[in-house]
């Protein structure tokens, strides 16, 4: 009996040791690349033997370049326009369409629902191919309309809003209808406050996705004037004239806003990932 307890104490120790070993290894694997990027952005060269961890001469020139150089700070402004424009537009569209699909009983409702699900099943990137050709024919390449309007039609957001509205019991609205409330009052004063957690999650994810999206601007904005920050950083990083710390600082600028949002509101992000499977 004594032997047995001793043995199980030892096993527990071993298990704990394994667990915390895995824990530390995972944290290192996930933190190191970000640390490396920040070090590079202030001038520590990763390509020498041995790699520099402390820069030989610290420089913030890359950051200055991306923030103050007029042709590059334009990308930052474009990124902000793209992020907030698309997020606002698609959220508004999704609220209206989601409300109609969830709350109104009309003929063909399930048809419309499956019609929208169909769009969610499409491989997004591959749809950009014909869309690019269509936009050329419409002369919308290299315009803000071409950049901002197509991504607003997000079937995913509509689906999320419909699900969120579905979860609210009908009693709330019926009480409001008896009190003589209009549709607008019901949506804005009753339903939206009730689904606020889902709404916040959706908006946060949309902000992060749109900020990070670089495939779409790459397709529709060949002109430097319409590049967003991810596209600008990506395309300059392949150029041989640009120094390594310059594009690394662009990348650091690129990851600061999502990182900040994620740090402040990681509960919403994790909730969104877990419940809705919010994933590109």
């Amino acid at each position, binding site marked *: 009996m004594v032997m047995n307890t001793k043995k199980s104490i030892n096993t527990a120790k071993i298990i704990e040791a394994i667990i915390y070993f*895995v*824990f530390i290894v995972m*944290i290192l694997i*996930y*933190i190191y*690349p970000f640390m*490396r*990027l920040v070090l590079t952005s202030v001038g520590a060269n990763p390509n020498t033997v*041995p*790699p520099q961890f402390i820069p030989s001469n610290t420089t913030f020139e890359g950051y200055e370049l991306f923030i103050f150089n007029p042709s590059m700070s334009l990308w930052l402004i474009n990124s902000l326009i793209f992020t907030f424009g698309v997020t606002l537009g698609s959220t508004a569209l999704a609220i*209206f*369409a989601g*409300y*109609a*699909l969830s709350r*109104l*009983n*009309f*003929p063909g409702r399930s048809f*419309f629902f499956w019609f929208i699900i169909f*769009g969610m*099943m*499409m*491989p997004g*990137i*591959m*749809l950009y*191919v*014909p*869309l*690019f*050709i*269509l936009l050329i024919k419409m002369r919308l390449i290299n315009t803000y309309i071409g950049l901002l309007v*197509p991504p607003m*039609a997000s079937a995913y957001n*509509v689906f999320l809003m419909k699900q969120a509205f579905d979860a609210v019991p009908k009693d709330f609205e019926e009480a409001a209808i008896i009190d003589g409330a209009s*549709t607008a009052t019901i949506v804005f004063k009753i339903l939206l406050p009730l689904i606020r957690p889902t709404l916040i999650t959706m908006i946060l994810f949309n902000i*992060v996705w749109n900020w*990070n*999206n*670089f*495939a779409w601007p790459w*397709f529709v904005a060949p002109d430097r004037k319409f590049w967003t920050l991810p596209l600008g*950083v*990506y395309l300059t*990083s392949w150029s041989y004239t640009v120094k390594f710390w310059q594009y690394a600082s662009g*990348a*650091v600028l*690129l*990851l600061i806003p*999502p*990182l900040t*949002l*994620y740090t402040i509101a*990681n509960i919403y992000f994790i909730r969104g*990932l*877990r419940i809705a*499977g919010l*994933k*590109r």
Partner: protein
Amino acid sequence: MSIVMRLMTFMNVRIRNLLIALLLMLPFLVLYVIFTIVPAIYAFYYSLYRTSPTGDKYVGLGNYVYYLSGQDSRFVYGMTNVLIYGLFNALSILISLLIAWIFSSPYMKSKFSNLVLIIMLLPMVISWVALGMALNQSTSSIIGIIRYFNNNIEIQHPAASLSFAVYYVGLMLVWGSLGYNTMLLISTIKSIPQDYIDAAKVDGASEWQIFRHVTLPLIKNILIFILVNAAIVAFNIFDPVATLTGGGPAWVSTSVAFYAARQLMYAYNYGGACAMGVITIVIVLTLSLLQYRLIYKRLA
């Protein structure tokens, strides 16, 4: 009579609702049809043409024959790599199953398991433009460290190596998705009623036996679901390929989406890119239908 009247008022309500609903959905539906449905149909139409600066030429199914018969080695690379990346996604799920099992153990303080999850989920919210750069630089710095200790070894950066570029991208995909899969599996494992596990313990089952015979069968459905999803996601891989290797060297690490985009943007091959688009759309829709069948089977 009254039944007819009531039916009519009922119908009127439904018709009125239809009008309101159409009005509310109109802005979305217009954009959705123009920018999602029309392109999907247009892709099929345009895939029947061969584009050239002097004018488009109708070639019937020529583009499909050209690609599916394997005459374009870059397309073959794209398709094979999608399969390889799908397998790496599956590998990510297997590893995350192991990690989820370890981190959901009672020996781990939940404070720590939350912390490591939050850190592992970072790649989900950060652009691949930054991630790709960070990973490439980390890799070259690690190569630098190895060469510092043993200068005789000549190591190439895997992103520039003909034989390793694909596996390098695959491994980085695992790095990117591990947190997400782990989180899903941890919450699934935690949703298993404790009674089942206690009952197994009373019967004298070991940790592994519990995992093998209690946990695994109970999470089998969600596991299959995630696996099918891994295949679907593989067809959409674009950013990691673009930022880690740029599809290179010599197109060996390209995904089909990345190759189609480059054909479209830099080679003026609209018809060919559309044909690749249609092939992908057909495969992905088939997989998605399979996935939805799985969900319904699970609900039923």
